[in-house]
């Protein structure tokens, strides 16, 4: 009788441990999904701002066709990209294109005096920041998730329920802010 009781307790303990670990992994996975959705929101926001930007500067910068085509091309490839890696690459390209665009815009004093242009510039650069921050948060969550499904005992649950590793959103090197932290 006693041995059955002990066995029962052990089984219940293991089962509840399983449930806790499983729920923990699920909530982490959902967190990563939400973080990914946040990146998507910001990428879309930036894409939506670009036609406005083109419209605002068309009159001023007639002879800068190259910059425009580069921006439009990168914008289209973000929309068509499906994988994390593809999106990350396209996003980096667009960031670079925008950066060179704003560098060129420096040569147009009239443009820099335009209230509308300055507002758009603020909108776009803060959206760029939001993309960087959402990417950072996503990567933080994915790193925790990826570590957790590799360590015991979570790895056991992860392999039974087929939790797979998630890709982190790796930015183009040139796009990264030039920051060094010693931690």
């Amino acid at each position, binding site marked *: 009788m006693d041995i059955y009781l002990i066995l029962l307790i052990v089984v219940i303990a293991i089962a509840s441990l399983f449930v806790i670990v499983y729920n923990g992994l699920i909530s982490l996975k959902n*967190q990563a999904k939400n973080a990914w959705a946040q990146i998507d929101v910001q990428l879309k926001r930036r894409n939506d701002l670009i036609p406005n930007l083109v419209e605002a500067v068309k009159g001023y910068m007639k002879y800068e066709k190259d910059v425009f085509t580069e921006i439009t091309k990168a914008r289209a490839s973000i929309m068509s990209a499906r994988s994390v890696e593809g999106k990350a690459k396209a996003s980096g390209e667009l960031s670079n294109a925008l950066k060179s665009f704003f560098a060129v815009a420096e040569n147009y004093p009239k443009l820099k005096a335009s209230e509308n242009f300055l507002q758009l510039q603020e909108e776009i650069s803060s959206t760029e920041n*939001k993309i960087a921050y959402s990417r950072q948060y996503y990567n933080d969550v994915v790193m925790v998730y990826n570590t957790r499904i590799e360590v015991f005992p979570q790895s056991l649950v992860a392999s039974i329920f087929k939790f797979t590793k998630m890709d982190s959103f790796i930015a183009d090197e040139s796009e990264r802010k030039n920051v060094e932290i010693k931690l």
Partner: protein
Amino acid sequence: MTRLMFEEIEKNKRNSWILISLFIIVISLIGLLFSYFYDSYTILLVVIFFSIFYSVIAYNSGDSMILSMLGAKEADKIKYASFVNSVEGLSIAAGIPSPKAYVIEDSALNAFATGKEPSKASITVTTGLLNALNREELEGVIAHEMSHIKNYDIRLMMLAVVLAGLVTLLSDFFLRSFLYRKKSSSSKSKGGGIEVIFILAGLVLAILSPLIGKLIQLAVSRQREYLADANSVVLTRNPTGIINALKKISMDPDPLVDSANKATAHLFISSPFRKNTNAINNLFSTHPPIEDRIKRLQEM
């Protein structure tokens, strides 16, 4: 979420409850004093009901009380675009809902966050701060406040301001009305007993309010300012911003936010009162010296 942060959150939630209970007990004790004097239990019941009622209000809308007390106004999305956008950006980095952005028209350089939980929080900065800091530094300050929000520091600090504020106010009221009655009582010499009760209540509160203040300071430990500074670096991945911001803030000749008082002091990123080099003052101050915070950040 790291384990350390989880512990911080639990501690803040627990301390918030302790603070509320303490408040209800202190106010009820005063009620007991009056009900004993007037030999009426109704007074005690009314006072207990009032203290619970006030606690519920303090918990749910203490932040709006603080914001209006300090004259903070919701930041205009176009006029303060970079501030509003930075708040949104850093809330994404912290993985919390975006807090509301508020501005105080004041030349002092200061900032604070308040609210009962991350989904109902706000970040306030002075216009002086917006003028003095560049974007990198501003983001450092906002990230510091974001850490207070994520840790639930804001809940404890909000309750401390609103509850301890009322205790101080009541103690002032009792002591002053005692003095007033003393002056006018020369014409009418009856009602000597009520004077005793007023001064007694006033004294009890006057003794208790700094004591409560001390307790709050122990709870709202200076450690959390260091923690928020460190978390600011984690969020922005950039120690330069917060370091330079703190340097500018420490050089501010007049850090006094006009509408701030002793009760609201510990809300701010740097003490809103004039610097005091007095060692004892330093020991009891709500904030660690900025030089020390900068040093710790540089060592990271």
